[in-house]
């Protein structure tokens, strides 16, 4: 109970929606209740019907009402059930739409524009799974539990009207099934679930490790080691699963024993109090037959409830998302054209890090300048970019555009910065739609012009569906170079004054790389370009090269001066162009 309260203490994901769609929720619960009620009533009525008929009353009139009712309940049950299932799915899917929007908005606030890999994307799919879990929480746990409890109340109150002692006994017996056992299941299963999650995670990491390193395993010939590595987690999972199964089987059996006791209580009670007259005795069969369908929704309540730990984890995770939302800064609009980007004694340290990733850097990039940034991985290149565009807030120092802090220009950032990164994302829609994202007010002709500018016109027009071709998941339809060029077309439409290039050619071969870079610099010759690159191909295009080393600049100048004055630069440049140099 305590953990239940903890889970929902700052909940913005479950409770608000229960309130929002209250009407439909009540309908779902009503229909669910009616389904089981009709099932019980059918047997109740049938029991009475044949008992009464067996008295051989003089006229059919005496059993007329039960005959009609039997058919009515017989039809009502499946109809209620059908509508209930439709309504509950509809309800849940409605909530899912809200969830998705909410999740999107929450994640959007934190998302950064400079991103090196799609790994974060995997975390996001976990979150998408969490939403599915919450969906199941309703369908598999909340609805059956509440409907079960409603039915429980109905049964014990109904019997209570006839005899409160019997009712009290049933409160106890059935109460164990619908309240105590689900709670006990959560307690036992919570621990087990946690353990299982751990082992499964271990197994999963081990296995991924093995499969990704398969080449090494194969060449090393370590077949037995390979097989042995999985033995432990497999055994552990099997043992847990075995326990879990045994627990479930015996739990179901125990529930049945309680059902049996309830039937016996009813039987003895009716034997004592309903055998006074023939008319009363006709009800005995009714009660005895109705009890089985009436308790049927109780049988799976423990199982539904024991899935709670899984849902709980999901609820906690999505609720955590709401915390640590970034502080909002009052936004302004840049007046006039872009003149200069000024970085002033900029220092940055990650909150949990111990070293300054960017250490007291200053530089000014004027309109139209082209700057290349180089440096080994981990020297703060991408952090510097994040600071420039305002994804990160500096620990000290400032980033200014035309003298205004970049943090105040976030709202219209897309009008300032165009970004081409390592793996630009193409959405699973048409080429036309993808390129138009650069400027959604662009006409079809504008889009086509942009595609022509990046040299993809003939390729796209040679495809059967031309501009309406679907790029498929993550742009699989096109090669790496083509994807980069489509994104470049997007940037042309976006028409922002500052272009950030974040290693756009890292996964391309040198020929494609050269062509892309020539094209980028030709098309964007009027723009200001800040280019992070890993080697020196195309370096002739820039006015300024800066090498970052441990958060500081250590070599800078035009490519020509550097080549003449810096031996190290000359060496690297020659290496890149394939001139054989030897240092030894």
């Amino acid at each position, binding site marked *: 109970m305590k953990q239940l309260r903890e889970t929902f203490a700052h909940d913005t994901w479950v409770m608000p929606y229960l309130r929002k769609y209250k009407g439909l929720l009540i309908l779902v619960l009503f229909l669910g209740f009616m389904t089981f009620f009709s099932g019980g009533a*059918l047997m109740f009525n049938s029991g009475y019907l044949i008992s009464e008929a*067996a008295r051989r009353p003089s006229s059919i009139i005496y059993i007329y009402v039960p005959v009609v009712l039997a058919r009515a309940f017989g039809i009502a049950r499946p109809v209620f059930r059908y509508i209930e299932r439709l309504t509950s799915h509809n309800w849940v899917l409605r909530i899912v739409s809200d969830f998705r929007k909410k999740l999107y908005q929450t994640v959007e606030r934190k998302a950064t524009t*400079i991103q090196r890999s799609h790994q974060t994307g995997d975390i996001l799919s976990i979150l998408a799974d969490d939403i599915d879990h919450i969906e199941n929480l309703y369908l598999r746990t909340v609805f059956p539990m509440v409907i079960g409890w409603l039915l429980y109340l109905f049964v014990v109150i109904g019997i209570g009207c006839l005899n409160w002692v019997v009712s009290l006994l049933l409160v106890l017996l059935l109460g164990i099934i619908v309240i105590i056992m689900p709670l006990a299941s959560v307690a036992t299963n919570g621990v087990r679930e946690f353990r299982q999650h751990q082992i499964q995670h271990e197994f999963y990491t081990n296995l991924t490790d093995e499969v990704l390193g398969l080449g090494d395993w194969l060449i090393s010939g370590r077949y037995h080691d390979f097989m042995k590595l999985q033995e432990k987690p497999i055994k552990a999972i099997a043992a847990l699963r075995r326990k879990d199964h045994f627990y479930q089987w015996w739990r179901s059996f125990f529930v049945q024993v309680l059902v049996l006791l309830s039937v016996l209580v009813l039987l003895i009670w009716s034997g004592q109090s309903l055998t006074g007259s023939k008319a009363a005795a006709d009800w005995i069969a009714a009660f005895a037959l109705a009890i089985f369908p009436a308790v049927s929704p109780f049988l799976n309540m423990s199982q539904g409830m024991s899935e709670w730990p899984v849902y709980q984890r999901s609820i906690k995770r999505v609720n955590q998302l709401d915390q640590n939302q970034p502080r909002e800064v009052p936004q302004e609009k840049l007046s006039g054209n872009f003149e200069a980007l000024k970085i002033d004694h900029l220092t940055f340290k990650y909150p949990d890090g111990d070293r300054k990733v960017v250490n007291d850097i200053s530089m000014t990039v004027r309109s139209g300048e082209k700057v290349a940034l180089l440096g080994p991985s981990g020297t703060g290149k991408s952090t510097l970019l994040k600071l420039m565009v305002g994804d990160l807030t500096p620990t000290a120092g400032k980033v200014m555009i035309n003298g205004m802090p970049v943090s105040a220009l976030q709202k219209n950032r897309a009008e300032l910065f165009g970004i081409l990164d390592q793996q630009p994302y193409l*959405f699973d829609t048409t080429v036309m739609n993808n390129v138009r994202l650069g400027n959604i007010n662009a006409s079809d002709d504008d889009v086509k012009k942009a595609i022509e500018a990046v040299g993809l016109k003939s390729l796209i027009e040679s495809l059967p569906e031309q501009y309406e071709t679907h790029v498929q998941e993550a742009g699989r339809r096109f090669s790496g170079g083509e994807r980069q060029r489509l994104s470049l077309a997007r940037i042309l439409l976006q028409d922002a004054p500052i272009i950030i290039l974040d290693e756009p050619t890292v996964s391309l071969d040198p020929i494609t790389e050269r062509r892309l870079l020539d094209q980028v610099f030709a098309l964007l010759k009027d723009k200001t370009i800040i280019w992070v690159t890993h080697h020196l191909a195309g370096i002739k295009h820039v006015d300024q090269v800066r090498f970052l080393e441990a958060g500081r600049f250590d070599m800078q100048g035009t490519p020509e001066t550097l080549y003449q004055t810096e031996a190290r630069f000359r060496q690297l440049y020659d290496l890149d162009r394939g001139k054989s140099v030897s240092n030894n």
Partner: protein
Amino acid sequence: MIDKRLLAMPGMRRYLGILGILVFIQAVSIIFQARSLSVAIVNLWNLEPLKTIFWPTVIFAAAFLSRHLLTVAENRVFFPFVEKTSGHLREQLMAKIFHLGPAEIEKQGTGNIVTMALEGIDKVQTYLMLVIIKILDMSITPWLILLYVLFLRWEQAIFLFIIFPVIILFMIILGLAAQSKADRQYEGYQRLSNHFVDTLRGLSTLKQLGLSKRYADNVFKVSESYRKETMSTLKIALTSTFALDFFTTLSIAVVAVFLGFDLLDGKVMLLPALTILVLAPEYFLPIRNFANDYHATLNGKNALSAVLEILGEPEMKQTKVLKDFTWQPDTTLELDKVSYTYPKAEKPALKDLSVTIKGMKKIGIIGASGSGKSTLINLIGGFLAPDEKNRIKINGNELPHLNQQAWQKNFLYIPQNPYLFHATLAENIAFYVDHATPEAINNAVKRAGLAAWVKTLPDGLDTMIGEGARTVSGGQAQRIALARAFLDPDRRVLLFDEPTAHLDIETEAALKQDILPVFDNHLVFFATHRLHWIGEMDYVLVIDHGRIVEQGTPAELTAKNGEYVKLRSEMGATE
């Protein structure tokens, strides 16, 4: 109805026998339970005293308990078999993964394989556990009950008997209707449900383009249209369950009404009538249970098919044709018109490659991307088998392919991103060597240029690296692979596949200084499109569209002024 592949599982028939007996006893218990309950009720209905129902109630309770104990017993008896079978399946799958090798597994998708070994086998287990017992239940229990009802009153038995196929017929018809509608919608449907993940993954791009805020409404709208589509499919999909529900429930009502009329006419006594009424729901219970778990069984069935499909993938046989040997200065490797075609591909990826290599050479493999460089490396590594056998010779021995254990003991493969295991740094370096001494490892670390970095690590060589542990930069990963080569002097053949293309130029320059010494006294295959490496090679293969268009020493090729020179200038070389 029963999956034939299940019957083929070893030991399955014996368990079917045992379970069949248990289910049979269970069905008898159900009849006893119904009969004794009815007796008790009829006694009370006749206004007889409570003590007359003592024995019927005892029998009822015993039958009831026996029935549910038998459920536990069936599961208990069957579970070890299921556990063993699915465990065995998982083992087979792992062994298969090992034998298929990385090229094949990559084709299947790493995530796919991992999910299959983990969740797929779990689903198979659930499937086995559910389906066998349910099918037995469905094929024994209703018929035994029917037989008993027939003995009580044949009219009702006939009615119950006829309604059964009607239910199944309707379920099939409606199921098919729903299926075809679902199939038609599936594509659009799938796209809609993927849309959300797609949007989240592209979020940073949306943010770059300044569209991210506006997109929230789009997310909602797409989700809503997904809901509407789903609902219209569900409306039909659920009719199949509705049919089952409708016919079973209504049949019970009909039985009750008919029994009522018959009782009224005195054609039947209360006891048999009541027994039939109690048994009617039991008659339908097995099929309802089966339908309830239909989706779980369907998932399991598909998972089983997927696993069996992988197990059925052909693997390279004859991996021991080559006798143990060590690559020596006079050893030869000969490729004679070797071709390779990817499965389902129209054109071969490699066509008629002929080359002879002797001793310790440095062989550069160059070509534009997509020309077949990596395929050639995979062929030499034995991860792929050539289209025709016996076109490869080592020391004159004809080999079907290079997936030879004796060959594997001779080479090391260093790809663009060497895989680092979730293990200590020392374990990663000594992956290929049994019982490497700490001195040997330290020496390899020094020669690979890792010593300075190792000193900065909190636990030195015992630091955990790999997934979920300390991250290692691309340059250091290459050096770890290099240390593996230094540690194992018996592996004289090195296969490099673009080891430095993705590194920044300074790291690359530094790494090159440490890679060059390992070339000495080794046969090196080096696929690359970085120009500076080509200068270090003794011999170059120029590949274009799967063919070797030129081969020779760099000097020869430069003099020839052909493909080699053309490729170099396209790559931006300054001579």
